[in-house]
């Protein structure tokens, strides 16, 4: 009998093209997502060396990071130029590159455009058992479908464009096993924030995390995408979730997914992928779902997580002196005092969006709280940014856009938006944002911005009350 293998090991083994004596392997890449920010220097490198894109058919380019989320056409349907000259030039560079290298492209005016990590699964470009890369660390999201998916730098983008491979050292494996039922008001976002709070932002470094257990198995695909998306915040370059009937049902019929007999053959292969029952992981972290409350961050690291009913911690409460120093710096930056109840923290900005939480179920969860309610007076700016044009259209068909606008939110075009302080959507210095995104780093949402990470429903509750709020009061 052959050795028991994990899902990660099965995908790895099937993609080894060559192996060096030190164990490093040349791994074939099945899927490559490209966006405007981390690709220009890679295409320039190809051009400088007279190289082509080896497999344009396995590549898909979509602009997302730098694209403004304000209307893209005027009343007459004419495209509105991007005001910022550098951003316009970066987008034009991507468009010139996809033309000259023959790369399939979903452009800014295509209804399918959106955040690459929303578009990939939505189009059926992301498939179980594939290797998938993108010049963006949240590529980990695609692991929710059982793809070995991870972020790469621009030199690696160039390497994949030229060779459709990457040299990689095998990762260690970590099983995060979540068991039990989630309490009402507790969502996938709370689960992943809780996990990161437990393992820390370096807990998964050098590892691929497989999320498993009954809690994960019982989640829908969009919740799983939220979980795997933030594996990188736990230090793991990739997250994985075993493909199952939920994954197959999600993918069937999507435009780029296999059809007919090819579909049946694919499903047979995918069913062989889950980790063998006796497979061994290098690390195992058990999590009890009943311990997870609606959660929120207080500091400037995604591991700075407390239940919404909790308080801002005192730096002295941490055992590690370096963590005490980091907590002091975080509290100074965040303008918070130890002992303050999280629910007493007033919020001026609300951001519902990002590759973590911008899919239709996220918008439904936020709208369910906002229906018939309005944002508080002190909430200066509240925006909803759907993850793709198709999510936006679906939400509009369900009337969710009107619930948001009636509540005082702006309803935007798809893109990365206020997740990263790059495009015009930014949080002003010294102001707070209740944000459904993935990083609360110093300056992440704009210089001096103060981010509190939480779920879409919690962001909606914070909007209504004007301060961080336990969503369970609105259920």
């Amino acid at each position, binding site marked *: 009998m052959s050795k028991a293998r994990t899902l990660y090991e099965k995908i790895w083994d099937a993609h080894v093209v*060559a192996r*060096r004596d030190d164990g490093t392997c040349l791994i074939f890449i099945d899927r490559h997502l490209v966006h405007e920010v981390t690709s220009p220097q890679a295409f320039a490198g190809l051009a400088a060396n007279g190289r082509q894109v080896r497999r344009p058919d396995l590549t898909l380019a979509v602009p997302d990071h730098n694209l403004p989320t304000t209307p893209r056409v005027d009343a007459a349907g004419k495209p509105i130029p991007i005001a910022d000259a*550098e951003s316009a030039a970066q987008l034009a560079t991507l468009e010139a590159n996809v033309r000259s290298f023959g790369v399939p492209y979903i452009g800014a005016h295509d209804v399918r455009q959106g955040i690459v990590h929303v578009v990939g699964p939505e189009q059926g470009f992301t498939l179980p058992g594939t290797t998938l890369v993108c010049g963006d660390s949240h590529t980990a999201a695609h692991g929710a479908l059982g793809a070995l998916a991870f972020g790469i730098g621009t030199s690696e983008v160039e390497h994949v464009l030229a060779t459709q491979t990457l040299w990689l050292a095998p990762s260690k494996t970590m099983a995060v096993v979540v068991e039990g039922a989630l309490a009402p008001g507790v969502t996938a976002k709370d689960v992943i924030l809780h996990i990161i709070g437990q393992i820390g932002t370096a807990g998964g470094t050098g590892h691929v995390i497989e999320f498993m257990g009954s809690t994960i198995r019982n989640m829908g695909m969009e919740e799983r995408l939220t979980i795997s998306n933030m594996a990188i915040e736990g230090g793991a370059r990739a997250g994985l979730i075993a493909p199952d009937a939920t994954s197959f049902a999600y993918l069937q019929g999507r435009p780029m997914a296999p*059809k007919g007999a090819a579909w049946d053959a694919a499903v047979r292969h995918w069913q062989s992928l889950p980790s063998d029952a006796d497979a061994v992981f290098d690390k195992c972290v058990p999590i009890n779902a009943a311990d997870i409350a609606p959660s929120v961050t207080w500091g400037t690291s995604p591991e700075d997580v407390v239940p919404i009913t909790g308080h801002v911690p005192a730096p002295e409460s941490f055992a590690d002196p370096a963590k005490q120093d980091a907590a002091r710096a975080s509290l100074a930056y965040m303008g918070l005092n130890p002992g303050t109840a999280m629910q007493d923290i007033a919020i001026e900005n609300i951001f519902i969006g990002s590759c973590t939480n911008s899919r239709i179920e996220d918008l439904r969860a936020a709208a369910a709280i906002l229906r018939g309610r309005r944002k508080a007076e002190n909430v200066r700016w509240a925006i909803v940014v759907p993850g793709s044009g198709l999510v936006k259209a679906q939400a509009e068909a369900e009337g969710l856009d009107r619930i948001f606008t009636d509540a005082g939110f702006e309803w935007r075009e798809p893109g990365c938006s206020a997740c990263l302080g790059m495009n015009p959507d930014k949080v002003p210095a010294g102001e707070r944002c209740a944000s459904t995104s993935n990083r609360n780093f110093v300056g992440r949402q704009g*210089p001096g911005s103060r981010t509190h990470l939480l779920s879409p429903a919690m962001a909606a509750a914070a909007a209504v009350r004007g301060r961080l709020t336990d969503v369970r009061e609105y259920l």
Partner: protein
Amino acid sequence: MQATRMISGRAIPWGAKNIDTDIIIPAKWLKTVSRDGLGRGAFESVRAVPGNIFDVPANQGAPILLAGDNFGCGSSREHAAWAMLDMGLQAVIAPSFSDIFSGNAFKNGVLAVTLDEVHIARLMAVAADGAIITIDLENQVVTSDRQDRFAFAIDPFRKMCLMQGLDEIALTLAADDAISVHEARQAEDAPWLVPAQG
């Protein structure tokens, strides 16, 4: 990639942990289509404070940065390595690095050297006192002009690429036949892997 064998000079005794790539280069600098000129935005929020550790006269132009655990966590932006190079930093010594950053650093000839915390604490102390630190890649040691000598490990392939300044894509294309064999096998065994056309 430029060949890198030895880096010697002042080291900035920073020691901060969990430095993310948003700190190294904020996103607003990522609108460029070039690798050049990013030094202006490097460590922008840190350097906005007068008297910060990067801009005190003693540390200006120092080629080495001493940092804490998990350096380079967060975003995959290779602009972090480009920004460091552009401001004159050629090496970081830390107890641990994020996986993506260490790869990006390597591809740009920036040495990401892993040493034990206790050895970094010693280097911090002598660097603050103006010591000259030397990273000798060939012999895999970090030394100081204060009698320190600490060995470090590095992946042999990365070491070879760094020392010779090899073009990794050209190396991989030498394995072109193996890639073609894999593609042919995949087309046979799993034809469904080619995306359907919308």
